[in-house]
């Protein structure tokens, strides 16, 4: 079997072809390195296409008061100060350049009256900040970078006669294992063509993980089948760490009906463009849910909130635009209190607030989605919405500047698979910008690493290859084992019910028991048929990743005894400053997952000075507060 193994050699291997992966590939190729992109689906179908609202970047096209400092501050507030401050800083500073660059690749964003890139309001962002194309911004981002990659291939074809001489996309390939030399240094990856089931080996001294999230571990999710935590699990098994895994974002507005589309996303732009949330009594309930840390930044009356849309300089924003974790919890509480909609959500209404023409112009995909899938005309009637698992803040622990993964030389990670940037909760719009900023940095980081190696290339023992092949074929060997679909459903139900939006120690412990049991059962799966495009086999292999990642989420959730951002503990309902400075780090030791506390580095003084002492006091311990340099005064008019 191994004699005929299909093998390729590259300098940089990028696993994942969403926004982060494609941007990393562009950067690596532009550094002159031979680069391969592994795509689990067809090229251009990555989950990034689902992003609707926009790309956050403080270009200041709509409100010139915006700046990277304000964006940084919003990001830290959104993440409840648990963010890697260095990542948040780089992100806020570099996002505008990454967006402008897309225009040179051919992107066509919506425009302001003076011809610049238009920017829209979004939850947690002080100013209109999201570059967008209607409500299909993710599609524009993917298509733009897909076409940029094609254009780089055209350049190569002109130069060498071969369009794939320096940049090749391997579509419909799944990576099952990273390859490492005996010292643990990355040497490549092992996987299979989905189409044929044939194995394929990539030799590459640098691997960039850009595999996205873990949503398929939960029952109600906005994520596609690809989101099985592959990169998270690959990093874990390779000996790297996962950070912040307890923080899972439940987007407040997913569709709740019909059952087959439950979880599919309803963009936050509906609220950014004037939509309001109401309960079964017709009340705009979000005014009752403004938490203390945000009091003073949000309107207290409907009149003021409504005035904000046209006069944001003199009014405060409506509480429908609080960060996602707050809105999701509020909806959860309303439904629990018996004030929900007929199908167990609440009402999101834009029909009574904007004209049909405005709605069709600003939210065409939403109109289309509800019309086609739920037979609801959003220009005439409200939508029914409820929380859906949307994003994992946690991921591979990386060096902020180079995206290098902790503990494994040659391994890099960018985008949703990496952790730290968003702290305990991500702001809408900060994902697409994250993909671009850290995708580019990962591509450059990997290129610099490879260039630093000179001619040295790590070697892999044949036994490692044989073991990877044997593990991938195991589900065909077993007879009379379990159906992978059944196991997957049980795991999703467990995560949804016991490690979902509201958690308690008791429930998380039960989840850990069930996951342990599922882990044993997952070793005896049986799949029908043969290796050619066999979804049952693919799921059997993905399950191993989902189970490992789910265990990380549960273990970290049990350890963190406070509520913050995307982690809400009913038994520890408040935010605790003593937990703020601590990251929870997951690592794998054989089959066991361990989680430990790791103190965070203190934020640089000039960044701390961007916040009022009063605000810092809400997050920091008295000791941390005492160490903060003398308070600065603000002149940029923000925060008012």
């Amino acid at each position: 079997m191994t004699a005929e193994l299909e093998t390729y050699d590259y300098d940089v291997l990028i696993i994942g072809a969403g926004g982060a992966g494609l941007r990393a590939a562009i950067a690596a190729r532009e550094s002159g390195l031979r680069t391969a992109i592994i795509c689990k689906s067809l090229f251009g179908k990555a989950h990034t296409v689902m992003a609707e609202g926009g790309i956050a970047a403080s270009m200041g096209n709509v409100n010139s008061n915006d700046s990277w400092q304000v964006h940084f501050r919003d990001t830290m507030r959104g993440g409840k100060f648990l963010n890697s401050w260095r990542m948040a800083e780089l992100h806020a500073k570099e996002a505008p350049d990454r967006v402008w660059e897309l225009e040179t690749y051919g992107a066509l964003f919506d425009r302001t009256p003076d011809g610049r890139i238009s920017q829209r309001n979004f939850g947690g962002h002080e100013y209109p900040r999201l570059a967008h194309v209607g409500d299909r911004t993710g599609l524009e981002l993917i298509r733009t970078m897909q076409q940029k990659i094609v254009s780089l291939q055209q350049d190569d074809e002109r130069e060498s006669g071969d369009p794939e001489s320096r940049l090749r996309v391997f579509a419909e390939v799944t990576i099952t294992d990273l390859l490492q030399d005996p010292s643990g240094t990355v040497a490549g990856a092992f996987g299979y063509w989905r189409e044929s089931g044939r194995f394929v080996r990539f030799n590459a001294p640098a691997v960039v993980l850009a595999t996205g999230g873990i949503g398929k571990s939960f029952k109600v999710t906005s994520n596609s089948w690809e989101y099985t935590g592959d990169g998270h699990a690959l990093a874990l098994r390779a000996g790297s760490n996962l950070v912040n895994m307890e923080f899972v974002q439940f987007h407040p507005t997913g569709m709740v009906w019909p059952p087959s589309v439950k979880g599919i996303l309803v963009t936050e732009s509906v609220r950014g463009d004037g939509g309001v949330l109401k309960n079964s009594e017709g009340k705009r309930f979000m005014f009752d849910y403004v938490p203390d840390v945000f009091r003073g930044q949000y309107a207290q009356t409907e009149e003021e909130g409504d005035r904000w849309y046209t006069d944001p300089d003199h009014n405060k924003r409506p509480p429908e635009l609080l960060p996602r974790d707050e809105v999701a919890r509020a909806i959860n509480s309303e439904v629990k209190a018996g004030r929900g909609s007929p199908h167990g959500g609440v009402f999101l209404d834009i029909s009574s607030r904007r004209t049909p023409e405005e709605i069709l112009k600003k939210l065409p995909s939403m109109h289309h989605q509800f019309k086609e899938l739920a037979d609801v005309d959003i220009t005439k009637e409200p939508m029914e919405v409820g929380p859906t698992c949307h994003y994992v803040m946690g991921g591979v622990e990386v060096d902020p500047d180079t995206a290098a993964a902790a503990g494994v030389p040659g391994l890099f990670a960018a985008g949703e698979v990496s952790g730290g940037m968003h702290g305990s909760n991500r702001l809408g719009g900060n994902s697409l910008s994250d993909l671009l900023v850290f995708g580019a940095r990962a591509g450059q980081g990997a290129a610099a690493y490879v260039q630093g190696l000179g001619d040295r290339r790590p070697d892999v023992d044949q036994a490692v290859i044989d073991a990877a092949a044997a593990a991938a074929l195991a589900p065909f060997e077993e007879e009379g084992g379990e159906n992978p679909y059944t196991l997957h459903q049980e795991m999703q139900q467990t995560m949804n019910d016991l490690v979902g939006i509201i958690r308690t120690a008791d429930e998380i412990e039960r989840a850990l028991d069930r996951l342990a049991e599922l882990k044993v059962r997952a070793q005896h799966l049986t799949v029908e048929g043969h290796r050619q495009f066999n979804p049952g086999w693919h799921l059997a292999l993905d399950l191993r990743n989902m189970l490992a990642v789910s265990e990380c989420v549960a273990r970290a959730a049990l350890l963190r005894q406070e509520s913050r951002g995307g982690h809400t503990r009913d038994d520890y309902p408040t935010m605790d400053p003593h937990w703020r400075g601590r990251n929870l780090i997951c690592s794998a030791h054989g089959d066991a997952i361990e989680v430990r506390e790791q103190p965070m580095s203190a934020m640089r003084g000039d960044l701390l000075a961007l916040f009022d002492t009063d605000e810092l006091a809400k997050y920091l311990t008295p000791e941390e507060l005492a160490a903060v340099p003398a308070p600065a005064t603000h002149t940029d008019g923000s925060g008012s």
Partner: protein
Amino acid sequence: MSYDAKFRVWRGDADGGDLVDYTVEVNDGEVVLDIIHRLQATQSGDLAVRWNCKAGKCGSCSAEVNGMPRLLCMTRMSTFTETETVTVTPLRAFPVIRDLVTDVSFNYAKARQIPAFAPPEGVAPGEYRMQQVDVERSQEFRKCIECFLCQDTCHVVRDHETNKEAFAGPRFLIRAAELDMHPLDARDDRADFAREEQGIGMCNITKCCTEVCPEHIKITDNAIIPMKERVVGRHYDPLVWLGTKIGLRKR
């Protein structure tokens, strides 16, 4: 709320295959893709189908339902009667890999032939200025989710394998139109390319592509016809021809 439906699904591979009959549960509000997934989970674990977003945004689950090119995730079961047999087959214009999965590499090859966006010289990133009304024409075509249903239904592609070499298909004619109408694209030969390399002349405007487009892009009216007019203007208008010949008009 729930009933048993009759399904016929094509099963097989490049060497051949057959329609296979299934009886499968259908619940309120479901789409055809839900039923295919139920078949996978309960009756046929190895039934191959492509899908991703399940919300009509990625264009992966293209197939033919009762002979019509459709996205499986956007075809609601309520459009069929409970006694009707629903037949699901792979896209006919492309070679079958397995079951409902076809080899769509033709489309990626065509995409690579189109010259990329040419950025305007001397305009720095961040300095691009375009009016909304001007970008909207191209934006319509950038809504394309690359489901390739238009390519599948186009009889130039579908019925004549030999045309595939010379004809790019509707998806890539709208790409040419998109670049032609881009306010800042520096190339002025998009129409020439559509004529010479993409075979736009082979399209005889039956509008089948427009009818199947799940994004409701007016492929024929807004892209192909204007591009054909540009081709005619550049190559067949005697005044333009003369002007080009005697140097009054630049190519």
